[in-house]
C-alpha cells in the first residue's frame, strides 16, 4: 500500500516538474535558426547554389583577367557595390522586370565576351558588368530566410560573390599561355551555351 502511495506521489512530482518546465520554457526557435552563424552560412551558400550566378561571376573574373590592367581589379571592385545596389532596390520594393532573364542573359553575354576575348573600352566593360550586377543583386540579395540575421547574410553573400570573382581571376591567369588562351575561349563558349539554356528556361 505504501509503495503504491509512493508511486502516486512520484508520478505527481514528475507531472509538476513537466508542467513547471513547460510553463517556463523558452521560445522554440525551430527551423529558421536565430544564430548569426546561420545567416552567414545561408549568405555564403546562396550565390554558389545557383549555376547561372556562379558562371556569370566566374566569367566576370576571367574577362577581367583577359582585359588586363586596370579592368582586372576595377571589375571586382565595381561589381559588389553595384550588385548591392540591385539588392537594395529589391529590398525597398523597387520592381525590376525580367530579373531571371537578365541573370540568364548576363551569362550569355559574359560568356561571349570571354569566348571572343573582346576588349571594348574600359567604360563600356564596366557599364556592361554593372548592368548585370544590378540584376544579380536584385535576384539574390533579398532572399533571406525568416529568422536569420540580415547583416550576417549580407556578409556571407558579398564574400561568396567576391570569392567567385577571385576564382575567375585565378582561372584567367591561364591567359598568359597560348594553350591557356584557347582553353579560356572554349570555356567562355561553354558559359555562353549554358547561359542560352538559362534564357530558354527563363522564357519557358
Amino acid at each position, binding site marked *: 500500500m505504501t509503495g503504491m502511495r509512493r508511486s502516486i506521489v512520484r508520478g505527481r512530482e514528475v507531472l509538476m516538474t513537466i508542467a513547471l518546465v513547460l510553463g517556463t520554457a523558452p521560445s522554440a526557435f525551430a527551423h529558421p535558426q536565430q544564430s548569426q552563424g546561420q545567416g552567414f552560412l545561408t549568405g555564403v551558400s546562396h550565390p554558389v547554389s545557383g549555376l547561372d550566378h556562379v558562371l556569370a561571376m566566374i566569367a566576370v573574373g576571367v574577362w577581367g583577367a583577359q582585359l588586363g590592367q586596370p579592368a582586372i581589379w576595377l571589375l571586382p571592385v565595381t561589381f*559588389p557595390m553595384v550588385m548591392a545596389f540591385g*539588392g537594395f532596390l529589391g529590398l525597398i520594393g523597387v520592381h525590376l522586370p525580367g530579373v531571371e532573364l537578365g541573370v540568364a542573359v548576363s551569362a550569355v553575354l559574359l560568356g561571349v565576351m570571354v569566348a571572343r576575348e573582346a576588349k571594348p573600352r574600359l567604360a563600356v566593360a564596366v557599364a556592361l558588368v554593372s548592368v548585370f550586377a544590378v540584376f544579380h543583386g536584385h535576384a539574390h540579395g533579398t532572399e533571406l530566410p525568416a529568422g536569420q540575421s540580415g547583416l550576417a547574410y549580407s*556578409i556571407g553573400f558579398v564574400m561568396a560573390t567576391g570569392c567567385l570573382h577571385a576564382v575567375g581571376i585565378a582561372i584567367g591567369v591561364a591567359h598568359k599561355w597560348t594553350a591557356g588562351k584557347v582553353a579560356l575561349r572554349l570555356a567562355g563558349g561553354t558559359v555562353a551555351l549554358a547561359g542560352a539554356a538559362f534564357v530558354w528556361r527563363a522564357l519557358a
Partner: protein
Amino acid sequence: MSAGPAPRSSAATGVVFATIAMTLLPASAEAHLVTTGLGPVYDGITHVVLSPDDLVAALALAAFAGLNGAAAGRLALFAVTGGWLAGGIAGLLVADPIVPVAVPIASFLVLGALTALDRRLSPAIVAVIAIAVGLLHGWMNGAGIAESGREAMGLAGIGATVFVVVALVAALVTSLGPAWTRVAVRVAGSWVAAIGLLMLGWALRGHV
C-alpha cells in the same frame, strides 16, 4: 515508516527536480555582451571578435587608415581607441542607444567607399573619421552594457581589442608592397560598402 512525512519530502524532491530541469534548459541570453564566464574584460574582448557590426567597422577603419600611410595609421589607432572608450563611457552614463542600425550602416558605407576609392586624405581627416567611428560604436557598446546591467569594465576589453585589431591590420596594410595587395584591400573595402548598402535595404525593410 509512516506515510505522513512522504508528501513534504516529495515536494522537496519535486523542487530539486524542477530546479535541475530548468537549469538544463536555459533560455538564450539575448544580452548585448557575450558571457564568457571569465569576467567583464574577457566578455568585452569576445564581444568585439564575435560582433560583425563592430569587428567589420574596426577592420575597415584599419584598412582605410593603412592605405593612407603610416602617419595616418598611427593617428587613427589612438583616435579610434580613445573615441571608442569616450563614447562607451558616455553611452554607459546616458544608457540610451541612438538608432542602433544606423551606426554600423553609416560606418560600413563611409569606410568601405573610402577604402574602395583609395582616396588619399590627410592624417588629421583620417583621425577625425576614426574618432567619429569610435564615438558612435563605443556609444552603442556603452549603452548596451548599461541596459543589460553589466559591469563597465567590459569597455576596457572592448577598447583593448579595438586597439589590437586596428594596430595589426593598419600595420599590415601600411607595409604592403606589391600593387595587387593594395588592390586586394580596395576590393575588401568594396565588399564592406556593399554590405552596408544591403544593410541599409534591410533596415528600410525593417529586418536587421
